[in-house]
């Protein structure tokens, strides 16, 4: 037996959050993980694709690309070189509601990384030469997604169920609107969205006082406080959701798919989020979940079937996806419908509930080991005004039991309330 290096290295647990609001309305949340070797700095902005106005489709994501092309002080590529020379990494992601930019660096280099990150994100150069080149890259990214049948099926489902709301539009935007964009329009969008109350910085790791001081007195505090916002920029457009059913053939699909989507409450309703997590786990997480056990284990008519919950500010999306041979499609759809309907007459049992509560609770706890996942959780919640402790979702589970889950959630997840997309492989001539 070998005791590996004989070390007792601490991956911190249950990090305590500290929330601050700066004078301009921006937020800082810190998660103290004193034994972490790395520190994550995660900048969040209420600037996802749902905030785009007509003609701006794709600008939020395109801006995310352009930010990495440098600021007025950092030349193209300089940010990447300097962060990676520190032993760090960086990335960004644009969603429907928000966008975030994060760096992960050895703790000793966190202050330098902070200066670089905030400079890059808050003062991007958006130069014409880089703009034209990066547009080509974004168009290649769109083409790459178009070549993935899985992505095409998912995008079609969102389009059918959520249009004309922005949740029904590709985050990457449309080629036509992207080609018409200019650096000036992007600057305007950046000024409009990257304002104090729309921004939050999350820091997770071994955080010194100097780092906090640097944030409080740095460029985050210098953002416009946005006292006179255009009403269109103050609120996201109201969500629309279309129930229904459609059947479409997709090129190069090798296996048929059945997708269903429902909208359930919104991200701010954390008890409903917990209920949706529990319900989807009862239905489709693990061999003992109802859909997996019945369709994959007993009937053996699907290759896979799963459900997940996407938390969004205007309405969480609960999605179900089953993959199966095309000749089984009708039967699979019928059995899914039957199982969903059965939840109304056969309530969730105590055993099913206990199993789901364990899986959801542990899944949450297991996801909080690394500074990057802690910063992402704390940042996304704080950005939207939800100042909750990291393990609060475990407490939310305790508000449910088998009977309230049956009565409160299962009726929402019935086929007639959702949108069903049947995706068939294209017929070969």
């Amino acid at each position, binding site marked *: *037996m*070998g*005791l*590996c*290096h004989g*070390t*007792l*290295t*601490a*991956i911190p*647990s*249950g990090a305590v959050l500290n929330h601050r609001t700066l004078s301009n309305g921006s937020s800082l949340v810190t998660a103290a993980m004193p*034994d972490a*070797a*790395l520190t994550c700095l995660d900048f969040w902005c209420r600037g996802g694709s749902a905030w785009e106005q007509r003609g701006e489709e794709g600008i939020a994501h395109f801006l995310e690309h352009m930010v990495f*092309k440098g600021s007025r002080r950092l030349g193209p*590529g300089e940010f*990447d*070189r300097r962060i*990676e020379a*520190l*032993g760090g*990494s*960086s990335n960004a992601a644009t969603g429907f509601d928000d966008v975030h930019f994060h760096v*992960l660096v050895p703790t000793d280099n966190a202050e330098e990384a902070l200066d670089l990150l905030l400079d890059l994100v808050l003062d991007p150069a958006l130069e014409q030469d880089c703009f034209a*080149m990066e*547009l080509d*890259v*974004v168009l*290649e*990214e769109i*083409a*790459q997604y178009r*070549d993935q049948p*899985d992505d095409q099926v998912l995008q079609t489902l969102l389009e059918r169920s959520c249009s004309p709301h922005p949740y029904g539009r590709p985050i990457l935007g449309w080629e036509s609107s992207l080609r018409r964009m200019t650096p000036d329009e992007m600057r305007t969008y950046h000024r409009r969205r990257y304002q104090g109350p729309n921004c939050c910085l999350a820091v997770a790791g071994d955080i010194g006082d100097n780092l906090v001081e640097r944030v409080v007195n740095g460029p985050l505090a210098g953002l416009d406080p946005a006292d006179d916002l255009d009403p269109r920029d103050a609120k996201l457009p109201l969500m629309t959701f279309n129930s229904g059913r459609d059947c479409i053939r997709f*090129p*190069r*699909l*090798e*296996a048929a798919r059945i997708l269903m989507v429902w909208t359930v409450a919104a991200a701010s309703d954390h008890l409903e989020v917990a209920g949706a997590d529990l319900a989807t786990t009862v239905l489709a997480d*693990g*061999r*003992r979940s109802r859909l997996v*056990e019945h369709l*994959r*284990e007993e009937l053996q008519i699907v*290759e896979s079937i799963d459900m997940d919950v996407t938390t969004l500010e205007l309405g969480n999306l609960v999605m179900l996806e089953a993959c*199966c041979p095309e000749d089984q499609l009708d039967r699979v759809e019928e059995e899914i419908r039957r199982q969903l309907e059965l939840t109304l007459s056969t309530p969730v049992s105590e055993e099913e509930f*206990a*199993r789901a509560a*364990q899986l*959801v609770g*542990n*899944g949450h*706890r*297991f996801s*909080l*080991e690394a*500074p*990057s996942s802690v910063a992402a959780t704390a940042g996304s919640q704080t950005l939207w005004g939800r100042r909750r402790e990291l393990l609060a979702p475990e407490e939310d589970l305790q508000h449910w039991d088998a009977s309230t889950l049956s009565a409160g959630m299962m009726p929402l997840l019935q086929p007639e309330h959702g949108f069903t997309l049947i995706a068939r492989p294209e017929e070969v001539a």
Partner: protein
Amino acid sequence: MSSCGDLILDPVSTAGVLSAKLWIRRGSSCDPAGQRGGHQLLGSVLSRGCGPLDHLELADLVEGCGAGLRCDTHEDGILISLKCRDLDADRLLPALGWMVRQPHLEEKQIALERDLSLQALQRQREDPFHRAFDGWRQLAYGPGPYGHDPLGISTDLQGIQRPELMQLAAEIESRGSTLALSGALPDRVSERLEEWLGPAPNATTTVERNACHSERRSGTDRRSIGLHPLATEQVVLMLGQATLPHGHPDDLALRLLQAHLGSGMSCLLFRRLREEHGVAYDVGVHHPARAAAAPFVMHASTGVDRAALSLDLLIRSWDEVLHQTIAQSDLQLAAAKFRGHLAHASQTTGQRAERRAQLRGLNLPDDHDQICLKQLDQLQASDLRDAAGRHLQQPQLSLCGPSETLATLEHLWNQSDYGSA
């Protein structure tokens, strides 16, 4: 895995989280002839009934504890992963022993998993990246042990029945295995493992540890290009060579070249293909840790109208590492990325346990990464160029995309030094 043999304990302070990784030194590279996919199928059936539990009782146990249990078959080994609360370790760790030493291998469960594998193989064909890499794998390794996806080949999978799996299961510990535990460890864990896992079989753990080394194609059998027509918008390009085992004396030099070429947004391929020419979104270098000749593959996907330029840029980048010495500043940057990568890859208990099990699985010392860090300062830029000269002389190209574009690219490739070699 003897009950108290190749065991690694890595105590880490966590919120009661324990990760266990059991690495068994028999992966898809050990699939017998005509049974490609055999070890993957075996791995998938291990949790479908073992020891005193049938497939549903085991699911009840694992899911009832809110734990995660999965089995993944890689080229060099089968990796069983368990993540749970430390409080549940007593109940769950015995399952690892049952899976390896007492699998039921019931016909019905085998048939179900075989069918799922066949469907998964079919679905993989949707992804042009997968097709291109599968093609490259064929070019580089042919019928050798690394020549097929661990999931297998449909025609072979269809023929694998219970007797074949019984044979594979009987040999599963023939090359030994390693159990790594990371996180909140139960009290007296090493003593209790014998109780949980049972006695070791009459193991032959010292035999043929390296018997599954991959062969690569050579001589007249070797083609330099493979074309995989598909009606897509983009072309996926994969340019690479079968190189070295993890831990080879030149491995660190190639890892630094990987960092220089394809790691992070400051890397050469990112700068050249994305920032200077805007021809691709996703670029990088695939160079996994393997027991034998690991792939070293540059990859990019690009629109058909700029595919020729992208291929030219990839070839030029390959040429550069082969014939030019990288700048001192680039060497330092690559070393910083390598250090950063090691730190990034050991943040969670799962990552830590897996790396420790993997190192033992590859017969490398526990402090292999620390040794590499010490060696970093001694490596010169010329060492990287020399290592490239020894291992990257004969790249092979796999392409997936519209057939007309592939024909154009094939013509260009054949005119290059590597295509005509």
